[in-house]
């Protein structure tokens, strides 16, 4: 199984409500994926100090990390960095020019700390355990933003760890969640690795995420790149893709995995099952439909 969720806020007045809208959606799909979960939140960055963009680096672990010690280390090594520590992860905001150095020194000094994602707008949490608990422990209800992409996981193809949980973030401000399974992930992975693409896990869904990023890096727009992934990846899938500018949804040719979409002037919401949409404000007035197989749906801000 697995549950996928995308929630794009169109009415800025609803942005402070994002977390409160999202949590019941995750709870509704918790039984589709009770072993682990993850949420990618997109929120607008504050004005950049000194004109240099600030990048958010989302971190987590499958081991034990003293996050307070970690925060101290970051503050001394990367003085302008701002560190926010949560229960089993942290987010470090650093100037763009410092990101590579931070990530490199993390792998040396803090090998059990994993980078879950980077971006100007993106914050990612991923953890094992019941999705409802993860929402509560990370205080998701209080989150504000304009896009959230979430996943509840019932693992079939690889291990249950935070690192194997979705969303996968194959590039800045780009995330992918997947319900389904791919049968040709190993061969696509080998080809991508030969092209120099690096992976964080042996998860099949990460292959689709990395392929999408490769297409986008090559100049495809989101629609084209998503369509490429749909054609090259063999298997069952409903994919939700989040970017700095919008959200895409696509299903395999046989529509083996479910999805329902609700569109209003105030938001666009996609979920594996309608019951996750049923509690959204104004859903009675929404246009509700199932995405057709092999059709890429994209909404931009």
């Amino acid at each position, binding site marked *: 199984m697995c549950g996928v969720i995308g929630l794009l806020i169109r009415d800025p007045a609803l942005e402070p409500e994002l977390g409160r809208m999202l949590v019941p959606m995750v709870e509704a799909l918790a039984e589709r994926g009770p072993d682990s979960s993850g949420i990618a939140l997109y929120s607008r960055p504050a004005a950049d100090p000194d004109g240099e963009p600030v990048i958010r680096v989302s971190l987590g672990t499958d081991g034990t990390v003293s996050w307070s010690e970690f925060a101290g280390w970051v503050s001394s090594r990367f003085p302008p960095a701002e560190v926010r520590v949560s229960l089993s992860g942290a987010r470090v905001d650093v100037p763009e020019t410092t990101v590579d150095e931070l990530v490199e020194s993390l792998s040396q000094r803090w090998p059990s700390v994993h980078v879950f994602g980077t971006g100007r707008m993106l914050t990612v949490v991923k953890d094992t355990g019941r999705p409802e608990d993860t929402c509560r422990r990370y205080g998701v209800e209080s989150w504000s933003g304009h896009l959230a992409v979430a996943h509840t996981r019932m693992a079939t193809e690889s291990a249950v760890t935070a690192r194997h949980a979705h969303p996968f973030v194959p590039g800045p401000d780009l995330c992918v969640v997947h319900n389904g399974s791919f049968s040709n992930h190993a061969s696509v992975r080998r080809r991508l690795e030969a092209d120099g693409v690096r992976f964080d896990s042996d998860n099949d869904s990460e292959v689709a995420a990395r392929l999408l990023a490769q297409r986008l890096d090559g100049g495809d727009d989101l629609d084209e790149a998503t369509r490429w992934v749909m054609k090259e990846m063999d298997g069952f899938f409903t994919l939700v893709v989040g970017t700095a500018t919008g959200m895409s949804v696509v299903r395999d040719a046989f529509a083996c995995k*479910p999805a329902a979409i609700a569109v209003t002037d105030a938001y666009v919401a996609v979920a594996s*099952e*309608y*019951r996750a949409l*049923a*509690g959204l404000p104004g859903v009675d007035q929404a246009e509700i439909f199932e995405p057709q197989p092999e059709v890429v749906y994209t909404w931009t801000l």
Partner: protein
Amino acid sequence: MDALSCDALSVREVNHRLRRMPAGTSCSVAAPQGLHNLGVGLTEKIDVCIQGNAGYFLGGLGGRTDGSGPDITVEGFVGWSVAENLMGGTVWVKGSASQSAASSARGGTVVVEGDASLRAGISLKGATLAVAGNVGAMAGFMAQSGTILVGGDAGHGLGDSLYEAVIYVAGTISSLGADATVEELVDDDVLAIKRLVELTGFDHIDPGRVTKVVSARTLYHFSADHHGVY
């Protein structure tokens, strides 16, 4: 009329109450909220009105082998596999149905006033499925017995690997599935469609102007011509 609400009761509690209702009574179920498994396994001839959108398996496994059973109306849309394995009675959906409507249904009647998406009537085993609008791809896949009436258009692969079920389509057919073929309407077909139009009120369907799809029966037996293929 009894009134239940999914705001106050779990699906299991709602179904338990519905199952204890004697024949001839009726009940409404408010706030279905897309919940799965509402009204499954009901055998008595009762009236149930679902006041909103329901989830998967609505009204599945209902009715008896003699074709009798509950009459369930949904004032909204339903998720996957509405009336799955229905034995008797009626499941009437005012909105649209998601995938696999009336899958494996043996008896009774399933009516969808909107559209039904992919695999409508998959493995149908004797029930009647009437859809006012369109059906998605692979409708009637491996359907063994029974009738599917489509008031709108049918998607790709209609009637793939069909057995003895009959499919009538008033609109266009994107493509036929393997071993499905179009056959001329005979008087009995027109009469059967007429009766269904009367029952459902789908009077946009002209009983004399539908396309009849049946099995070509080329997959029924091993063919020596295919020997080298296996």
